């Protein structure tokens, strides 16, 4: 039983690692009920698409880490950084 407000800290995702945020690992297809420590790193179904820099058959400039950064952002982090742009 996880404490109230618990969110899974594991990294999930296909091209971009992002926070899982599930409230329980029970029934989770990414970590297989909590058995996989880093689901993003341990995926085996990318068929050669290892990360957004090496997207086979695509121009490597189609994706940069800026794309990944944009998708990784946690939803609760806006309007808190007065040096952002």
């Amino acid at each position, binding site marked *: 039983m996880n404490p109230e407000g618990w969110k899974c800290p594991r990294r999930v995702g296909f091209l971009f690692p992002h926070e899982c945020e599930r409230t329980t690992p029970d029934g989770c297809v990414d970590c297989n009920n909590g058995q996989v420590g880093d689901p993003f790193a341990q995926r085996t179904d990318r068929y050669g698409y290892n990360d957004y*820099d090496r997207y086979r058959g695509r121009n*490597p*400039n189609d994706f*940069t*880490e*800026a*794309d*990944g*950064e*944009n998708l990784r*952002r946690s*939803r609760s*982090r*806006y*309007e*808190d*950084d*007065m*040096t*952002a*742009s």
Partner: protein
Amino acid sequence: MARRNRPWLIYALGGGWGHLTRAASLARAAKQRHRVRVLSNSQYARQVASATPELDLVALDPSLEAAEVRRRVIEEIEVFDPGCLIVDTFPRGLGGELAGLIASMTATRVLVHRDLSPRYVAQCGLRSFVQSVYDLILIPGENEAGVFADLPAARITKPWLIRDPTPRQRRGKYSVLVCASGNATELAWYGATVSNLQTLYPSVDVRCVAPVCPPGCLKDCWIAHWPAADLYPAARVVIGGAGYNTIHECLCWEIPLIARPWPRKYDRQWLRARRAAKLGSVRIVKTPEEAAHAAVRQLKELRVRRRIVSFENGTIEAAALIEHACARAFSAPPFRSAYP
């Protein structure tokens, strides 16, 4: 003071050069007819102030805590009591501090709509907020058109530039100008790019414009200058980021740009770079080595330069549109009808 004669205040908070440079561009165009003040917390405010002493610039300490910045912003706005509040990029303010204030202001409210992350827009309900609060939405360049572009108050202008483009020199004084804008942590990338150029292509004359000399960059080729646009006519290729100013300046000057998009919290540099690549000579790179090779390839490809025949700086039209919005608000009855 009569509402008609009250000054304009440009809210230009945000890191880096972009917000402040855009605000300075508009203030420069409007200052002949209006008193204009710019409010900024950029770490580069001192450089901008020394280069433009005529600019009425209130520079907040960039190291202040967020809560203190919010408090100071509200205080500055209330004391200045502008007739027109022009908010750059962040409709609710960078820290959300305008949300509780702006709707109750008697000032004409103008949003400068640089591109914004759609996630942020959705999470904070910005579309309905903008629609209900702002009298005018200015889009400084067609390529910046984003999620508010279809609102009735939106108007597109040409890009806003701090300098009007001038014809370039027949032969560039420098082969490559590395424009190291952005965050301090990104300076190392630009320094490595300069170093790569000098190692791989010793005959290429390279200069690097940056607020401080980037690590890896020789002092001999470092130039501390703002605005970097002053140096463009002397360059044949620019290597830079994909922020608003670098992209639009290079497109307007018709100078080839090797662009390195950086991740930002709200801006989508990669999108701007890709859009620009469809319009002009813009190549997207990631590593310093790629940038060096791309710049030299670009130098070899250069053909006869086109001269800029005519160009209208979007700030002129923007100032006129703001004037028009202020005049309309001034002549409007005190209570706005629900049926326009």
